């Protein structure tokens, strides 16, 4: 049973990363608004961290960061590091303060994308 749950989680992570990679590469990165492009990998990391907690956020952040480094031709490990810290921190914050408040959700969602920039 535990093995099956772990497998489902891995498949989910892989599917999410694949969807993020395809959407980001195909559409999102091509369209900029006022010179800013949406980072779907980071958004998915935030969502996963809020849903699965710090461990899930950190693991997904690592995988998504690696995918983003490959997709953006950046130094391998750069985004992985940032997203791991982001996913873990947000998972901890959501676990401690919850995500019921609209302001908290906005803070979780807008904070990470803005802070690296």
């Amino acid at each position, binding site marked *: 049973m535990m093995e099956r749950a772990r497998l489902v989680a891995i498949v989910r992570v892989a599917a999410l990363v694949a969807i993020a990679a395809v959407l980001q590469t*195909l559409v999102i990165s091509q369209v900029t608004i006022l010179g800013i492009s949406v980072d779907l990998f980071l958004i998915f990391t935030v969502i996963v961290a809020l849903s699965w907690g710090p461990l899930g956020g950190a693991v997904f952040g690592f995988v998504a960061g690696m995918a983003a480094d490959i997709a953006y031709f950046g130094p*391998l490990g750069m985004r992985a590091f940032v997203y791991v810290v982001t996913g873990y921190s947000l998972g901890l914050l959501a676990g401690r303060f919850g995500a019921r408040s609209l302001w908290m959700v906005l803070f979780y969602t807008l904070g990470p994308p803005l802070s690296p920039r």
Partner: protein
Amino acid sequence: MSPVKSAWRRGIFVLLIIASLALLTVSFREAEAGPVHDVRHAFGSLLSPLQEFGARVAEPFQDGYEWFKSVWSAKKKAEQLEEQLDVLQGEVVRLEEQAEENERLKALLKLRDEGTYPEGAEFEVAQVIGKSPSQWEAWVRINKGSDDGLRVNQPVVGATPTVGESAVGKGLVGKIVTVDASTAVVQLITDTQSAVAGKIQGSRAEGIVHGSLQGRLLMDYVDRDLAVDTKRVVVTSGYGELYPADIPIGLVVSVGEETINMFKNIEVQPFVDFRVLEEVMVLLVPENALPGGTTATTLATPAGATQ
């Protein structure tokens, strides 16, 4: 949460951080042909067709956004340019008016410098601020008065731009008939009440130049036996105690004779175009410099002019 689970979670987190930093270090230190770079290039080559396809798919949206942006900025720019155009059109009109005024004043200065006026004569430039409303009278109101040294019967000359740089276009306008502190009325030489002693250059024939109800300028009292040609210049003779001698009046345009009249019928075309007169110059002639050296007498105010 149990301490074991918490420690396990922290351990995973630290492991991921170390893995990220290790990858980052390798990525920076490894040669271009290293295994990490190879893996990245392999995944990159898988994604690059997707990126090319995405670029083609997203192009209309990208262009659409740029199109909206450019239309918006073009609209704003057009509004700004229209405002600038309005301002500049007003400026052009103002500058053209100034340029024309400049030309007229230059013509007046030329008239002052080239004319022969009595010694000690001074000049006061004034603007025309009103004109006689009907053809029965011919006068203009100017914006200078007794405060500026103007007096009744002072001669007035002027220049109009219609005929360019020649002597034509500059000449006698009339005389002041009414004056108050800040304005004065100038009776034009085309007024029926006006009479100017003149002479025709070339023949030396003398007569009286006066206006008519038709607005024409006529020269009377020229003997029939004197030869007078057309295109001759008529100037003031200096007789009559009002006007200094040799101020140009106009050109003889027609000469006629009648058997029952002992004088010629001469029509004179005035040098000054009174229809477009905007500035004039009042001659402040010292009284003793006028022909005869006596104070001029006040003439009747033209109909419609106020004292």
